[in-house]
């Protein structure tokens, strides 16, 4: 069984937001509109945080793309009263939208604040033509439901189908999420962390690799490669 993980190289990432936009397009995250966005209700499963330190002109900036960290010990799963969110296949933290009651305990529990709530039926409010243009592989979420990055789980299912068709072992199927595919700087690596032959497993062991808030013990499967220390 694979253990899917991601490595994001902050040296390469230039904050262009291609990954975030690709994620929104792939997983049918609609724009929430001006007034909702101003209230901080924007839905972007992969958000890019800017960290700007120093005083002009001695500045240092890091753009940090943050998808769901897909923790091995996810706090969101523990607090869900209806078992709508659970640790699924390949270590992907999955969510059953139909089961979610919108209590938002998981949002409060997530230390990375990467879960998003549908305050309204945003997808249903889109013009009919735009609804038709949605990705049919991913179901839109109704009002009152929490959602988050799924590591493009639907692509994993598709890859497994392909493997079956080609007579290969579906358990060894390999796939690539939309963010990795879109990144122009090739800053995102994705693969099986338990397979030592993969680039992602190698990079996760790098001396530059770290995870966000490791001390909380959530064991996230998203690693960051620090910027190289050559900035003058």
């Amino acid at each position, binding site marked *: 069984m694979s253990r899917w993980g991601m490595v994001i190289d902050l040296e*390469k990432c*230039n*904050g*262009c*937001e*291609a990954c*975030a*936009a*690709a994620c*929104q*397009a*792939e997983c049918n995250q609609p*724009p*929430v*509109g*001006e007034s909702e*966005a*101003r209230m901080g209700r*924007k839905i972007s499963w992969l958000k*890019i945080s*800017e960290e*700007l330190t*120093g*005083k*002009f*002109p001695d*500045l*240092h*900036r890091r*753009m940090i793309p943050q998808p769901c960290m897909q923790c091995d010990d996810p706090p969101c799963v523990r607090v869900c009263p209806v078992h709508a969110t659970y640790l699924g296949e390949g270590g992907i933290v999955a969510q059953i939208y139909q089961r979610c009651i919108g209590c938002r305990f998981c949002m409060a529990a997530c230390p990375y604040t990467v879960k998003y709530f549908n305050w309204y039926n945003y997808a249903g409010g889109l*013009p009919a*033509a*735009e609804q*038709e*243009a*949605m*990705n*049919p592989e991913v179901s839109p979420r109704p009002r009152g439901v929490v959602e988050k990055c799924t590591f493009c789980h639907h692509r994993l299912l*598709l890859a497994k*189908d*392909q493997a*079956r*068709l080609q007579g290969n072992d579906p358990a060894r199927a390999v796939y690539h999420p939309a963010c990795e*595919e*879109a*990144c*122009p*700087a*090739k*800053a995102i690596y994705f693969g099986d962390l338990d397979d030592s032959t993969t680039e992602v497993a190698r990079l996760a062991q790098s001396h530059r690799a770290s995870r966000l808030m490791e001390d909380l013990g959530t064991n996230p499967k998203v690693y960051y490669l620090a910027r190289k220390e*050559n*900035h*003058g």
Partner: protein
Amino acid sequence: MKLSRRNFMLTTATGLGAWGLQACRGRGGAEAIKAVEQWKNQLKQTRFALCDGCAARCGLNCEFVDDRLVGIRGAALHPVNQGAICPKGLDLKHQRLDEDRLRVPLRRKGPRGSGEFEEVSWESALTQVTLAIQSSPQATSLLGGQYRGSTDDLFQTFLQALGSPHYLRLRCLQPELPGEHLRRMQGLDSPVAYDLAGAKVVLSFGCNLFEGWQSPLYQARVLAGDTDLIQIDPRYSLTASKARVWAAPHPGTDGILALGLANILLREGLYDAGFAHRWIKGFEADQTDRGPVQKGFKNLVLQGYGPERVEALTGIPARRLYQIAHLFGGGGPSVALAERGPGYGQRDAYSKMAIHSLNALVGSPGRVGGMTLQARPPLTPLGPALRADNDPLSALEAGEIKTLLLYRSNPLYSSAARTRWAAALDKLDLLVSFATQMDETSRQADLILPDLHSLERWQDDVTLHQAGVSLYSLSSPVVEPWGRGRASEEVVLELARRLNLHSLAFPDYPSLLRLRAEGLFQARRGRIPQAREDSEIQQLLMKQGYWQAQYDDFASFWTALQAQGVWLDEQASYRGRAHLMPQGNFDLRPLLQEAKQPWVAPLHRGGLLLVSFKPFALSGGRNANQSRLLESLAGPFGTAWEGPILLNPTTAKARDLRTGDLARLVSSRGELVGPVKLTEAVGPALIFLPFGLGHEFFGKRGSGRGVNPNHLLADFGPNLVGHSYVELSKVEAG
């Protein structure tokens, strides 16, 4: 057994179940499941399209399910983006569905600018344009914005057939032409490509490599490795934050900074003496041949641009100058970029030539990691070229133009000289706009003939600025047109038919493109990339001079070109120095002439300097009505759906301003009010305003949102300058 209702149902259900199982076994259950899966996987179809979100023209794979466009991905085989995609490309499928799009021909019925239009038939609209052109064909003109490829050639041929010399263009960069500095110093008449992939050090003067310059996705890919980027930019942009060294000079002092670097390179012997001796003209004083002994470049730089003076003028500490000079001149192929779109201020020519002189010092023309020339793809020519007039306003003001066709240009928004433009457009007998959105200039139009969305029409493009590859891209429509719009190229061909212009006797635009592509097929070079695995071997062979025909006849070549969308030739890259300097030398004397003019101190005492910039999401110039892109502004600006005035906290504190407050900016040209955002990314004496919002008219979401820096910027003629002095004050709430 008594046949009760219950027994009847039970027997029927059991019988049907058994029959079903038998049927399944007969066909093979696993095979049936496999067939379903196969069907599911084959449901998705992919069609190639060209992105027209910005001037980079990436390749896209559009994904269809049941003829519905459901996804867009980057095309892996397109050399520009190689599978990557940006927010603008991803949003094309929604841009196409914008309900504010103009979808029927419109004729003005109220006074000009009133916004009152009525729907008309194409026949009626085309008759009106034909009659106007017929009455004075030589007084017909076309004003174009940013586009390349056969559209450009078609417009040139159309105007030439009419006998009109007025082909006007209004844009920041002219990708098909070399910059003035390249023409004057190297004698070039083709654009150069900077070999960023091969360079060890890239010194960029204000070129926003990752946000808007040329092909941001290509640059992101090739500069993500070990290349040392030095970014000279007054703003700590995303590009600057990825640079190894960032320096923020006072705006407009880039040329002085460049000569300050040249001073250190010369004094410390960090320049390519062999190149200087062989190629540079005007390097030493005694090399001049214009009468009395004239100062050479070396004298000028060593005497006038010492680090202390340069520090005083530019604000860059001398130690930082040494750091940059040593990095730039310290080995490895280096290249300096003097191609900032909005120019370098009032001394634009001087600044560009000063920056470009650094390329001469490190010998970058014609070497790997330096500058190359890309040959134009061998397309069948339509007719002789008609050089575009890049000072359209003066041409219009001269009053010789009666009918103007407006294509992808909105000068009343994008030019700082709005008032002059409005007056010049008012003189026209007929203004025809091909716009897809009711923008500021189209509201002044007499006729609107809406173009199709890029995914709905034939497109092609010629890319020459990417080092190592001469590239032609082509895409056919991938979706049905929405509404009664028509491709502008088809409209021009229809006008040509009605005007009996024999040089443009094509039944439709695809047949014109087909004729052009025949040139590619007959040239016996280049290839259509088919698969990633093949391409490396083929590339290697072709670099060694081998060429193998991929297709037996033109029909199969044409089919493959439409499917793959790309023709490329890696051999069409000229690195030989003689190609890069057709005049036989790298002439520094034009720079010496420019340097003679006295320097005007760029910073206004007490005032703040306003500088505009293009955020990545809006760099296409026509994105202000796209909700997803507006929402993505939360990334660079912290707040979605707006483009705030960016201020340093020190500047803001002196005026009691906080993030979110409203501020008034007043310049000699006008004033505007907008929300402020405090950030350390801009210097204390500067104010930055994003360009791309602030439309008066641009659909429901785009109108009245944000501010347009052009309302404040000074008008310096055809050169877009991008900065101006302003006064800043707080607007009290209520």
